[in-house]
């Protein structure tokens, strides 16, 4: 069977049949990006991104079953070939991927066990959370902040005001990086001539993932928490193999391998209502013997205030220890120290938001804006733009050639 019929069959299976199953939901979305920078073979001036997502949720007695599948069509090199990649371990996105496949059942009335592939959301501070930042992201779209689900087992429960959560992730799902050397991941390596091509090696991540424990307590207007984790850090470290560089008539080609460090981390989190503000804070310490990663002490403080249907959120985050390598190569810590201000507002017709992120080390930044208009309850159109700016060696300023506008049309069911 050729690849096209296989895709057609899978797409057919993704189509919703609400009449057959009430627990089906999902969406189809077509998104287009237009870039301000000049087009070339690796970075076209326009990119299309189509998504078909369907989710099935069912209750079987006291157990909750959920499965979801995503099919995509991307016109850029960010899309890989169709492959069996159930844990998202390959360097490029497969056109078909399983996003949810889990079961949750009660061990006792207040203790749940969840098994399978699902997404985690940790932390308190919204703009930047050290508790949440280690969870794998897909940076194929560097401005989307898209999380990747994990294969994991999670035991969670509540006893009075105390909640707890233990997570074991037996398989590493790594961060997915954009195609290295493109506008989404420009690499500026010192003493490397212009025109050098970086050849990405699809290094297999370690099999075993991480284990983590989180305890939360709510006392009046205080929400408190502490967590710890140990295992493989899913954000890769890049090894530029200059020793394996190949000189061709077109220029130099340098293989780039990925390495995954072990890391131990522990942190505390709190939030409190102070007058009309909600103040949230996190502090975390990370320890690693890896020469390129080193230790880190990361803090984040955010304050949120509602203004009717609008919300203002400001966040300040930083790392007290200078990393041994360029912070841009550490991904989850790339923008630190940073100041983030976000404003979002719900309107009768939809919503809009503005986000300004500025790196305090280099003064570079990113302005994002988006307006969503609900045509009906199931049709929605979204337009927006991303404007990275500033110092070109800063983590955000380096993306200046990725300045773009986008528009999307979504049908939900």
């Amino acid at each position: 069977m050729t690849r096209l019929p296989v895709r057609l069959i899978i797409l057919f299976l993704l189509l919703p049949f609400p009449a057959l199953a009430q627990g089906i939901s999902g969406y189809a979305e077509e998104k287009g990006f237009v870039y301000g920078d000049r087009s070339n073979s690796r970075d076209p001036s326009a990119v299309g991104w189509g998504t078909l997502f369907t989710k099935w949720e069912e209750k079987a007695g006291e157990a909750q079953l959920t499965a979801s599948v995503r099919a995509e069509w991307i016109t850029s090199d960010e899309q890989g070939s169709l492959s069996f990649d159930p844990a998202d371990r390959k360097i490029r996105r497969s056109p078909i991927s399983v996003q949810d496949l889990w079961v949750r059942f009660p061990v006792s009335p207040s203790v749940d066990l969840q098994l399978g592939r699902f997404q985690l959301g940790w932390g308190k501070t919204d703009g930047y959370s050290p508790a949440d930042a280690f969870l794998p992201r897909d940076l194929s779209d560097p401005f989307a902040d898209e999380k990747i689900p994990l294969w994991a087992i999670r035991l969670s429960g509540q006893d009075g005001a105390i909640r707890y959560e233990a997570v074991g992730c037996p398989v590493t799902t790594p961060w997915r990086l954009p195609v290295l050397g493109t506008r989404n991941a420009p690499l500026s390596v010192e003493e490397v001539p212009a025109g050098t091509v970086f050849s990405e090696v699809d290094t297999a991540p370690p099999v075993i993932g991480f284990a983590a424990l989180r305890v939360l307590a709510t006392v009046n207007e205080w929400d408190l928490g502490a967590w710890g984790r140990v295992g493989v850090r899913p954000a890769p470290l890049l090894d530029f193999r200059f020793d394996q560089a190949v000189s061709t008539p077109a220029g130099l080609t340098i293989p780039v391998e990925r390495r995954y460090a072990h890391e131990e981390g522990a942190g505390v989190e709190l939030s409190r209502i102070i007058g009309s503000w909600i103040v949230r804070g996190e502090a975390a310490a990370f320890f690693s013997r890896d020469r390129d990663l080193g230790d880190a002490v990361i803090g984040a403080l955010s304050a949120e205030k509602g203004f009717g249907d609008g919300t203002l959120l400001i966040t300040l985050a930083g790392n007290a220890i200078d990393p041994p390598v360029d912070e841009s190569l550490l991904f989850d810590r790339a923008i630190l120290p940073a100041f983030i201000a976000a404003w979002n507002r719900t309107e009768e017709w939809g919503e809009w938001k503005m986000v300004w992120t500025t790196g305090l080390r280099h003064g570079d930044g990113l302005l994002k804006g988006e307006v969503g208009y609900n045509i009906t309850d199931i049709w929605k159109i979204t337009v927006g733009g991303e404007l990275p700016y500033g110092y070109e060696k800063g983590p955000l300023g380096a993306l200046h050639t990725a300045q773009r506008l986008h528009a999307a049309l979504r049908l939900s069911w």
Partner: protein
Amino acid sequence: MHIRRSYKGCPVWIAAVALLSVFFAGIASAAPDARALLKESENRHRTRTQQYAGDLTVVNKDGKVRKKGWKSFREGYAGDAKNLIRFTDPPEVKGVGFLSISRPGLQNPDQWLYLPSMKRERRIAAQDRDASFVGTDFNYEDMEEFDHEKYKVALQGEQTVEGHPCHVITAIPLEKGGKSVYEKKILYLRKDIIYLLREDLYRKGEKEPGKRLVLSDLQNVDGHWVAKKWEMSDLKKGSKTTVLLKEIAFDRPQPGSRFTLQNLNREGGD
């Protein structure tokens, strides 16, 4: 005759003081009446638990219609209520959860919102309680049951609403009762069954009501009166949200873990 004679010789200011005394005595005696009526209403309509499914229709000033669905569970009543709401429709808000737990005394309840996209809950500050509740004309404070203990109340008189004679009661939030979005509420209690039929809601500085809640289609379910239709109108914006209640049940046992943050964070859960 005797009375008339006795007033005849009084100076004007004495007559005025006497009249004012009668007036203030009237107010003083009206306040307990209003309180008594509200207590009576609470006693009559208090249920241990309540659950229902709601179909919402939001119509904006241009006539554009949006529909939503939710499931609501409550344990306790008014000042000791715990409330969980989970949206079921449309897809954009499906799975969004709202948990409200009353706090002892007159403080504002603790409120959290669960957003499936974030996979975790977010606490709602008292100030945020004026924000639209998931795109409806209800705000977060409107989602709480009226607790008369948090208000200074006074009986204003009587008025007919939808053909039913009603007590009209003014309720002004007490400062120690937590921050309220509203400066004043006027309640219309149906006289025969002491049931709330209408609320006129005044935000700070408003001389006319900015919002109006009308409760109708009263039915007796499990021995309790319940309005199966709620209409919240934003009189300034010109929009209206209608909630139709179905699958109503009272005093059914609720699982002990239903009104917990653990349950609020259960993706796909009630």
